[in-house]
Every structure is written in C-alpha cells, then in structure tokens.
C-alpha cells in the first residue's frame, strides 16, 4: 500500500531501496486523481498511458542499476503553459484549447531527462493572469484544505495537485507571485528562482522581463530536487544565464548559523497589512531563525506600492503586447477576468512603460544596497489565509499591493514556505528572498526552517 502522501525525497529513497516501484507509485497517484480531482479540478488533462510507459521504463532502468537521480520515477504535473510535444498546451484558455506543440519546453525536456514521470497538464489562471475564472472551458482549481477556498494563482492547479498528493511536485511560473501565491494558500514550498536560472523557452509568456519558471512541492528539499533538474543554460532563451548550476540538494546540508536576515516588516505590517495570525506566525518564525543561529535586523525599503506599481505596469504592458492582435480579433473568446485586465494594459502608454523600466532600475539598485551586508530577507508572501474562491474580484490584484512582485522586479530568488495554520486549519506562509543566483542559500535556510518546525507533518484531508 503506497501512502497517500510522500515527499519526493521520501519516494526517491524508497525507489532507490527497491521498496517502491515507480509503477506502483504512479498507479497510486492515478487512483488518487480519479477519486479526488472531481472536487479539486487541478488537472486539465491526465496523460495516464504516456505516464505509465515512462514509469515502466524508469522501473526497468532503476532495476538495471541505471538510476538517473532523485527525480527518476517521480510523478509530477506541469502547469498548462509548459509546452509538451504532441500534447495540448492550452494556457487554460479557449483561445488556445486546440494548440498542440511540436516540441517540449526546454525545462520539460530537462525534467524528462531527469526521469520525471509527467502525469498531465495542470490548471492555471488563463495565460497565467486571469483567474479564478468560471467562464473558461475548464473550472478553476480548488484548495485541498477547503474546497470553498482559493488556491492562489496563477499556478493554481499545481498548488492544488501537490497539496492533495495527486502528484509529488509540479511546475509553476511566477510573473508577480504565481508560484509563491499558490504555495502560500495551499501550504507548500514554492520557489521563484533567480531570473535567468530556468529557461522560459517553450513556456507561454505573460510578461517577458518578469516571467520566472520554477517548482512547487511539499518541502524546500523537494523544490531543490526539481529545480536541480529544471535549471541550466538554454541558448534559445535570451535571458538564460550561462553559468554553472550549483548542487542545490547537496547544499541543503550546509550550516545556517551566522546567516544575516533582513526583516522587511513594513511590507506586511503597514503597506499591505496582514491579518493577526499571519503576523504572529512570521514573528514566531523570526524567533526560530534566531534560535537557529541567524542574526536578524529590521530593514526598510520603499513602500510596497512603489514596487507593485513598477511591476504591474511592466506586466500589463508586456502582456498586452503579447495578446494585442488576438484581443482585437476575438476579445470575447478570452475569459472576462483576463480580457478586462488586459483592457487596462491597453491603456498603458509607451512613456508609462519606459518610466516603469527606469523605476525598476532604481528599485533594483535600492535592494542591492539594502542587501549588501545581508544574506536573506524575511517578509510575508500572503497577507492572510486563502480567501473564499468566489470573493476574488476582477481587479483585486490591483487593489492591494502584491507582497511577492518586488522580487520579480529585482529578479531575486524568493521562496514561500508554510509557517503555521489558522485556528480553522488553513495554511499560513512566509517569504525568504536571496541575492540573485544565491538560490542555494534560500533553499538551505528554508530547509533548515522546515526541519526545525512541525508544519510539514500536517496534510489536508480532502472531503468528498
């Protein structure tokens, strides 16, 4: 009997010791999808036959002593903006529901090469922006902790599927917080890596200069495993960094004692006030970091609204540029939430966009200066528990400044972690941010925090 919940690291150990076969593991996930996903709507498409073929190959290779590493034989899901050869990649949109790519995205090729078993394509907000929407060909994903709640977005299906144990990990994309938001609301670890670390080639774009691809998983350790497979130079992505990828998994074992943490409290205490439970949970986490031997000091940055204005104007302008022709041709084929947000993007002028880019340079310089004698920043990744899914307004992302978008503006690595639960049993979250290309430091501190706290022992009970 395969447990309902396993981390990637746990499953990899069982597979390596031949106590669990990739085929058994996949079948247990497919059974779970069949039982639970009618409630969660996390999958747009389950590719069971193809996954079984890959799992059987993985089993043969592992039995023959040809293990490819900790992702070999592990069932994962792909946000449905990652292109997959011969398999529809829709962006969760009517506009692309018949789009069948000829080739895999670069990062998908790398995941397959690492031996991952791709179970299917996961729900997203339409083109990673418009959601939760109820007027698209597929319903929005639901939060496994409470199906009346929002998953966060836009990597909504990945958040739901990983939290419910339908897959052990998955891919997301993050333009303003679309990995970290679902990680926060669904109680997961989700890292937006440094800009340029993971290729964007073959991933449907939202905003070229802010788009980051990365993993969501149950733990920071699992994120390290998946990121290891995804990261690496891709000459076809003009933003791809041509530099050596560190060993993120090995790096988890390093000491965190002496790490210098800057605590950006005003982001969630004044600029976008978090609820009492979130503030208390982050405060408790700060004490834990001190007990682990880290030093903490408060850091003040420009108000969150400055970062959000810069990021949102860039996002709207770049996204509208991508969809301009189709929006003019068939506006109402898009969902209402996406198309009306894009109508705002159409009103951004060229001067507005360039002013946002100038502001971006100032903000990048500001953060770099603030982090000169720091290793990591601590702040919130969400201001509250997951709200009811039907309470999310069409323009809600513009009403309160995002806690996550500052680090899309700067390209810094940022991870959302679970740091407790509300009295009602919903996850709470925090955010750790590193210097560009110091993803290993962020993962190491996140892993140490998870080891020092009990939050990874609690899993959702999905009610049927």
């Amino acid at each position, binding site marked *: 009997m395969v447990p309902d919940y396993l981390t990637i690291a746990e499953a990899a150990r069982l597979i390596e010791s031949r106590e669990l076969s990739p085929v058994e593991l996949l079948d247990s996930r497919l059974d779970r999808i069949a039982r639970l996903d009618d409630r969660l709507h996390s999958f747009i498409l389950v590719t069971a036959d193809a996954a079984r073929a890959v799992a059987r190959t993985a089993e043969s290779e592992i039995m023959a002593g040809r293990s490819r590493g900790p992702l070999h034989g592990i069932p994962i899901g792909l946000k449905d903006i990652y292109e997959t050869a011969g398999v529809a990649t829709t962006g969760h949109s009517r506009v692309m529901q018949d789009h069948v790519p000829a080739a895999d995205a670069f990062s998908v090729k790398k995941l397959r090469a690492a031996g991952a078993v791709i179970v299917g394509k996961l729900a997203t907000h339409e083109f990673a922006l418009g959601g939760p929407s109820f007027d698209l060909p597929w319903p929005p994903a639901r939060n496994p902790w409470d199906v009346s709640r929002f998953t966060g977005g836009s990597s909504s299906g990945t958040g739901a599927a990983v939290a419910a144990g339908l897959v052990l990990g998955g891919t997301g994309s993050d333009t303003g917080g679309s990995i970290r938001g679902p990680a926060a609301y669904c109680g997961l670890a989700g890292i937006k890596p440094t800009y340029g670390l993971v290729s964007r080639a073959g991933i449907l774009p939202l905003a070229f*200069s802010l788009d980051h691809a990365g993993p969501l998983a149950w733990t920071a350790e699992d994120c390290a495993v998946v990121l290891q497979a995804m990261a690496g130079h891709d000459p076809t992505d003009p933003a791809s960094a041509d530099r050596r990828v560190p060993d993120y998994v090995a790096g988890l074992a390093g000491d965190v004692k002496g790490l210098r943490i800057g605590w950006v409290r005003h982001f969630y205490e004044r600029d976008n006030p978090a609820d009492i439970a979130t503030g208390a949970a982050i405060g408790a986490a700060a004490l834990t970091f001190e007990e682990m031997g880290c030093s903490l000091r408060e850091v003040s940055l420009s108000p969150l*609204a*400055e970062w*959000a*204005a*810069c990021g*949102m*104007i860039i996002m*709207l302008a770049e996204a509208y540029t991508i969809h301009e022709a189709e*929006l*003019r041709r068939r*506006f*109402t084929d898009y969902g*209402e939430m996406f*198309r*009306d947000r894009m*109508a*705002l993007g*159409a*009103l*951004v002028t060229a001067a*507005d966009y*360039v*002013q*946002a*880019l*100038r*502001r*971006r*340079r*100032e903000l*990048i310089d500001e953060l770099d200066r603030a982090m000169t004698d720091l290793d990591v920043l601590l702040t919130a990744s969400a201001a509250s528990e997951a709200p009811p899914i039907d309470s999310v307004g*069409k*323009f809600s992302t*513009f*009403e309160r400044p995002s806690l996550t978008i500052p680090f899309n503006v700067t390209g810094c690595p940022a991870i959302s972690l679970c740091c407790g639960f509300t009295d009602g049993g919903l996850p709470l979250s925090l955010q750790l941010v590193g210097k560009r290309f110091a993803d290993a430091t962020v993962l190491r501190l996140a892993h140490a925090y998870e080891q020092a706290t009990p939050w990874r022992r609690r899993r959702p009970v999905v009610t049927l």
Partner: protein
Amino acid sequence: MTRAELDTALVRLGLAVPEAERNDIAAATQLLEAMIARLRPPGGRNVSAEPAHVVRFSEG
C-alpha cells in the same frame, strides 16, 4: 478616466469590449492611474536615468 473617455480609447485601440464590462473597466482605471502616477517622481527624474533594460551587444 470617464466612461466616455474609455469608450473613445477602446475605439482607437480596436477592442470590442462588451457594454456590460465597460463600467467595471472605467472604474478600475483609477487603480491604473494611481500606479502610473507612482512611476513619475515629484520634480521629475534625471534626464540620464536609464531604464532597467538596455541592450548590451557582445563583442566580435
């Protein structure tokens, strides 16, 4: 932006926004305008202030 200004802009942009959605968008332009205003510092910016993205060509 008023509803009339929005209607004019949408004609220029060539976007066939349904009538039922136009008031929502017109109201949301206040949020957009507030963000845009934040991008321009009081007194303006140094004329030489570069954007974050400039093209740097490799040599050779």
